[in-house]
């Protein structure tokens, strides 16, 4: 009897999950042993960090700051995706717009994140809007470039079909255009999230009085590596959770038609 492909797939998934857990356990073990051998304040043991993590969760500071930072990540991410997608599609569809703004895009792509953040704070004050806007502006050009590729690759045959059958603009966008852009949207969203959450921490460090970035700055001033690592672990875990709980199911759904 041969094993069904579904069984085989779930078996392979289980194996790959076990490998991941094993690999992480190995990292933590090496960390623990090294820390115990060094016995230095600069590298606390894994066990100490996890105890601190539990304490911070219990007293509410970590959930509060993590929540604020995630809200900023979400806001900046959504703004960047929406604006970047609109710009990318427009430039992919219109040669004139592309010729006009391509150099702007290149310029923005090469602008250091720190410069954008500092300028945003100088020009618009130390406000929430300036913080979120600065993060979004950092991400917009990359989204636009990706979606421009997607818009250039749109299949004209499908557009002709929609046009000849008088499928309205909105339905054409939803059923004909966007599904062709999903792979590009997912690519932009993935790299977007990875970039946005890192920049949000810098924005918080430079000009906000709460959030993970701000907390890390406080720990930095006290040279409290345990606190820094506790926050880092919590944050990385949440971001990975977003990948598993939101991105991967969405992507599976969008790709379910593939044989």
């Amino acid at each position, binding site marked *: 009897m041969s094993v069904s492909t579904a069984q085989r797939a779930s078996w392979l998934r289980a194996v790959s999950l076990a490998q991941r857990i094993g690999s992480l356990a190995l990292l933590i073990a090496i960390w623990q042993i090294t820390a115990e051998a060094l016995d230095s304040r600069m590298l606390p043991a894994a066990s100490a960090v996890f105890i601190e993590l539990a304490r911070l969760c219990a007293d509410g500071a970590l959930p509060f700051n993590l929540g604020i930072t995630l809200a900023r990540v979400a806001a900046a991410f959504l703004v960047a995706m929406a604006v970047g997608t609109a710009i990318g599609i427009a430039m992919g569809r219109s040669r004139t717009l592309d010729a006009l703004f391509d150099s702007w895009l290149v310029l923005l792509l090469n602008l250091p994140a720190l410069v954008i953040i500092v300028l945003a704070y100088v020009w618009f004050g130390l406000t929430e809007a300036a913080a979120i806007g600065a993060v979004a502006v950092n991400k917009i050009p990359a989204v636009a470039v990706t979606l421009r590729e997607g818009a250039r690759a749109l299949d004209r045959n499908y557009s*002709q079909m929609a046009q*000849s059958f008088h499928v309205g603009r909105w339905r054409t966008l939803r059923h004909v255009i966007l*599904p062709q852009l999903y792979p590009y949207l997912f690519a932009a969203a993935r790299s977007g999230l990875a970039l946005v959450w890192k920049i949000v921490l810098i924005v918080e460090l430079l000009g906000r009085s709460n959030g993970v970035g701000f907390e890390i700055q406080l720990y930095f001033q006290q040279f409290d590596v345990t606190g820094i690592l506790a926050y880092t672990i919590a944050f990385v875990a949440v971001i990975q959770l977003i990948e598993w709980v939101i991105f991967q199911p969405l992507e599976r759904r*969008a790709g379910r038609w593939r044989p």
Partner: protein
Amino acid sequence: MAAVTPALHADIRDKRYARARGAQSHIALAGLSLEIAAGELVALVGPSGCGKTTFLNIVAGLDRDYVGEVRLAARPDGCPARVGYVFQEPRLLPWRTVHENIALVLPPDRADAIVRDMLTAVGLAGAHDLYPPQLSVGMSRRVAIARAFAIEPDLLLMDEPFVSLDHDTVEQLRELLLKLWRARPTTVLFVTHDLREALMLADRLVLLSAPPAHVVGEVPVSLARSRRHSGPEIELLRDEVLRQHRELIGSAATSAPR
């Protein structure tokens, strides 16, 4: 005969494609003029690459860059004519189910019932939830034909819809097309380079020249459709058409007898 408004009046005086870097433009159509009566099934026959698809795209309103005019008779209620289009490839959205593909071209409130009717009519009642990549080529064509008929078109454009299919599938699809057309009468403009196929389906053949395409002849087909099953009668008709229109030899004539 009383002057009845034709379902389609097309007079394309000039259609050309620009070539890159100022080279001489390619003239696709020149003086292609055609009228089709309501309910008529007309086959447009011409050599491959003579501009037949270009002509259909103009009639469908997809291409407005031409000199000439296209008039479609309005519906009895005064609304503009509806045009159904069966493209050379099925052009189904691979990321939407068969049902959703047809529903897309229909008003949402009535879509479900119409889709069910049409899929049953083309023999795919069980295929609603399949995605196009799961369909055979023959099934995909059926869905494309169902989609075109679903909108109750006043004019149905078909662009070599049976090209590159095996003989049995083509036979079945032709039967299906005629069955649907009898049950849902409409005006059909069927493009093909296969003279035999044209003779089996059409009320009238319109023969096109090599580019720049124009009409070089018309052949009414009076033989009853029940007697057109690729028998000797079709071969006789075909020989006669080829005798009268020697310019077709070398294009349509080269397709081997089946």
